[in-house]
């Protein structure tokens, strides 16, 4: 018994050394992870990702309507953001709704480094529409002017 255990441990150690050399964590991933702490925006309130239809179980996906839209919902303590994303030929259209609807608010799509890729005013019902020419990792940033409030930022989403 203990012989088997020792043999197993020995083989695992060999495999550990092997994978450590053959498939280590890439340096750019380590550097990205380390830098990510510095990209926090401490002024903003997080709207956390609650649901993403891309993670639906197969059963749930089957009961949805047939089109290819992706639905996501985000919640901060003060604001809910519902989003539908329609992707076609590399272009992504983001149709969204803020709840409760602020009287005046701008919604931006930000890239990982903070660059604004697109921006739109929400209408009086809190609806907005943004178009992105490329995919990638983005987040929504909502600037509420009336009533004024802290910016709300969504969790990262990958298009």
């Amino acid at each position, binding site marked *: 018994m203990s012989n088997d255990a020792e043999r197993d441990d020995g083989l*695992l150690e060999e*495999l550990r050394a092997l994978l450590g050399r053959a498939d280590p*964590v890439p340096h750019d991933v*380590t550097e*990205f992870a*380390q830098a*990510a702490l510095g990209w926090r925006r401490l002024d903003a309130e997080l709207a956390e990702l609650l649901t993403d239809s*891309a993670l639906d179980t197969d059963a749930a996906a089957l009961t949805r309507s047939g089109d290819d839209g992706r639905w996501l919902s985000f919640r901060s303590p003060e604001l809910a953001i519902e989003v539908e994303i329609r992707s076609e030929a590399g272009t992504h259209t983001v149709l969204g709704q803020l709840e409760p609807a602020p009287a005046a608010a701008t919604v931006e799509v930000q890239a990982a480094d903070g660059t604004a890729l697109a921006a739109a005013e929400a209408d009086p019902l809190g609806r907005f529409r943004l178009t992105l020419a490329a995919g990638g990792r983005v987040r929504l940033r909502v600037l509420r002017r009336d009533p004024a409030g802290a910016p709300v930022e969504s969790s*990262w989403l*990958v298009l």
Partner: protein
Amino acid sequence: MTASGAPITQLVRAAAAGDQAAWNEIVARYEGLVWATARAHRLSHADAGDVAQTTWLRLVEHLDRIREPEGLGGWLATTARRECLRHLRLHGRESPSDNVDLFEAPADDLPGLALLTEERDQALWRAFARLGERCQALLRLLVSADEPSYAEIGAALDMPVGAIGPTRSRCLEKLRALVGHDPAVQGGAA
């Protein structure tokens, strides 16, 4: 402060307050787990990189609301697994083959075999690549740099903790047999 031996609770608190050294130590402790989780889902090198990056961004956004820092590894493993599933659901696999084994990965994508000069290493690598998906995934997690707990491995692979021990034995037995049958290796497993 010496971050390297600090308890995880202290590191999380310090990192949430902006301490870069503490954050780097958290990355060092868990990057192997996150990477192994992505690779265990048979994502390509590039896709695994994307998933790992997204996982770290999610930790950053949650850093000041981690209630149980002791469970951080499990949280990261679960998050990485969900990002893998999301990626696969949205983009599928880069390779049309359902059998993306590491051994056959393009040389510039994964140096793999080219780096391994010893016969024994090459034989082990070939044998590993011939294991079933589940065995490759479990062994990859078991040998990831940070020696993850069974709870963390269970979270990474959505596998019941109680199944890990028996599966480990079975997979190692298969691996040993495959290495033993490799013509390049005389005398079987060491």
